[in-house]
């Protein structure tokens, strides 16, 4: 697939699409369907409406019986067939939030009344607003949401109520998505979700009674909200694994797109060159639908401009059957397997390799990292810390205690000199060539043993479930070449077409005797705490 684009063609294309929308022409494919958000215009992006019938979405019986079980795509199909209303779906999720979130603590803020009003409006509109019309979503609490507290789980933003939406949020709601609430997160997007003083809040939805189980961070709440069936889908951010790791821990499909695919405007920064917005979803198709809506150029974020067009992600996430009905890869795909891939979760990973290798079109390729890989993806990872310090100097000077348990890495960022930071940027270029001209010359996608290398480089990653280890979800992370999210989705979709790990849901927690803030405090009593040193060591 050609990614050819230059700035002139890109701008001409945008203008053509704007004209088509204005004149009422049927909407074009994904890359063109979302017009840029102009800094000089308050016009909302146009909705993206893929043909889900063409994608062959089959609604499972479980989803017909319980709408909170439905994937985003299933819910959209049910609504288009008038088998489900947005109001019923939002009410079902709010019921679960009311019953279970004092245990899960996935939400920092629930916008129930607003969500219900939006759902009723969506039902009245007949679902014409976009692919997400009437779909309830959880938004990580570091995305600006107009009129809704955005605390980033930090004392710094305790009273912050933005006056506009982040671009990604604006795109989701313009496509009909409904913000059900703000997802709890690691303080300032650093660790698993804790209070600013380090006390664990959000649990892993698979072990609601054991807060010691790692739920993944820092998009902990968005992951738990989807896994615990308290939202159809969610969005998070990733600087050091914060989308793919909670997805792996909680049996979700998370897609961290290439840097620049999704605008970071209106996202509270952690490390600006590495903050990637993206979806945490129930399967590859849901991740494709979410990213297709979120992605696109934004004049507020120059990193999103002049990039290759978005491929047809819905097509990529639609599995392909060969002769005889067996699932095959949409394209022949070489999957790189690094030498240390089987060093952990060995049994489940072996089974994964066997299963995916059996899909027609897959070739597994053994990969050896370059010799300087441990240094350039290890110690050099700390170069990101200067970036988190810079936009937070005001509060560091005012009162460092506002950073709570997370303070240390912000202070560490002051200890790197400019020349060292530049050396780290030079190393990025060197590492990029090692990956693109070396590793990815031998394979099309690469299984990861950690998210950091591709976070440093801004390359795309997808996480998806591959089984269970000791009762807990186990997943893999697959990395790809720049702007080839479609290739990642093709692999995940093919694997999910021949397995059912992604359809497994955790059992409900025991319903607490009471609900509300008091119940949340009671459920939080006795939860473990992170120390400042642990927070620094585990920080994204």
């Amino acid at each position, binding site marked *: 697939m*050609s*990614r*050819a*684009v*230059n700035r002139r063609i890109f701008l001409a294309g945008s203008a053509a699409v704007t004209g088509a929308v204005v004149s009422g022409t049927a909407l074009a494919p994904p890359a063109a369907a979302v017009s840029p958000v102009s800094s000089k215009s308050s016009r909302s992006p146009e909705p993206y409406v893929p043909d889900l019938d063409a994608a062959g979405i089959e609604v499972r019986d479980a989803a017909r019986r319980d709408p909170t079980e439905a994937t985003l795509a299933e819910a959209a199909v049910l609504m288009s067939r008038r088998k489900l209303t947005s109001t019923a779906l939002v009410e079902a999720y709010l019921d679960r939030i009311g019953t279970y979130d004092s245990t899960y603590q996935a939400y920092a803020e629930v916008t129930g009344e607003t969500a219900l009003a939006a759902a009723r409006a969506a039902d009245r509109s007949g679902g014409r607003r976009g692919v997400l019309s009437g779909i309830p979503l959880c938004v990580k609490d570091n995305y600006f949401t107009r009129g809704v507290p955005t605390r980033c789980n930090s*004392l710094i933003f305790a009273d912050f109520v933005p006056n506009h939406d982040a671009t990604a949020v604006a795109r989701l709601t313009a496509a009909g998505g409904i913000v059900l609430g703000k997802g709890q997160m690691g303080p300032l997007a650093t660790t698993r979700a804790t*209070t*600013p*003083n*380090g*006390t664990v809040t959000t649990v892993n939805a698979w072990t609601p009674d054991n807060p010691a189980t790692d739920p993944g961070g820092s998009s902990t709440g968005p992951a738990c909200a989807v896994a615990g069936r308290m939202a159809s889908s969610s969005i998070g951010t990733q600087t050091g694994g914060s989308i793919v790791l909670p997805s792996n821990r909680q049996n979700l499909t998370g897609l961290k797109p290439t840097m*620049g695919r999704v605008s970071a405007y209106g996202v509270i920064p952690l490390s600006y*060159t590495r903050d990637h917005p993206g979806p945490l979803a129930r399967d590859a198709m849901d991740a494709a639908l979410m990213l297709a809506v979120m992605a696109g150029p934004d004049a507020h974020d120059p*990193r999103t401009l*002049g*990039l*290759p067009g978005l491929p047809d992600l819905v097509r990529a996430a639609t599995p392909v059957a060969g002769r005889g009905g067996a699932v095959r890869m949409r394209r022949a795909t070489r999957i790189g397997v690094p030498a240390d891939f089987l060093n952990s979760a060995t049994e489940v990973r072996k089974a994964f390799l066997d299963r995916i290798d059996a899909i027609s079109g897959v070739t597994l390729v053994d990969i050896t990292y370059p010799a*300087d890989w441990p*240094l350039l993806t290890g*110690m*050099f990872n*700390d170069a990101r810390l200067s970036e988190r310090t810079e936009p937070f*100097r005001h509060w*560091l*000077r005012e009162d*460092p*205690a506002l*950073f*709570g*348990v997370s*303070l*240390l890495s912000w*202070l*560490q960022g*002051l*200890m790197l*000199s400019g020349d*060292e930071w530049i*050396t780290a*940027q*030079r*190393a*990025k*270029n*060197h590492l*990029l*060539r090692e990956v*693109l001209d070396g590793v*990815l010359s031998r394979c099309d996608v690469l299984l990861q043993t950690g998210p950091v290398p591709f976070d440093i*480089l*801004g*390359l795309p990653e997808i996480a998806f479930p591959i089984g269970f280890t000791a009762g807990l979800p186990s997943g893999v992370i697959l990395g790809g*070449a*720049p*702007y*080839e999210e479609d290739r990642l989705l093709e692999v995940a979709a093919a694997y999910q077409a021949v397995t059912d790990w992604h359809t497994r849901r955790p059992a409900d927690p025991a319903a607490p005797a009471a609900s509300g803030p008091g119940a949340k405090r009671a459920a939080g009593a006795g939860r473990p705490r*992170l120390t*400042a*040193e642990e927070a*620094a060591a585990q920080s994204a």
Partner: protein
Amino acid sequence: MKSGLHPPHGMRIPEVLLSQPQPPTQEQLDAYIRTRLALAGVDLDLLPTQPDPATGVPTRDQALRSLRSFVATVPGAIAGWAPPVSGAPAAAYAQQAAPPLLYPSITEAWTGKADAR
């Protein structure tokens, strides 16, 4: 310079030997850290001397200990790296190698290389 590193008279001192000063003492590190923080406008004395469960913020001693460890390891590891090159002197060729990139993946697209894959 350590006495054992003195070259024989008249021998040109290799660059690598010239760039090995004595490691700083703990007191020097603490002074450096406090000075750097002060220059950045950050007052370490705003931190508590005893653990504060309400905020979870580290104490002054915890912060100093953490920063001492960081300063003693990370900057040196980063500053000690240069892109591998052929040719001598290597430092001259390393200047030309791997120009620093803030956004490697985006640069790949802006330079058209992403299209070629």
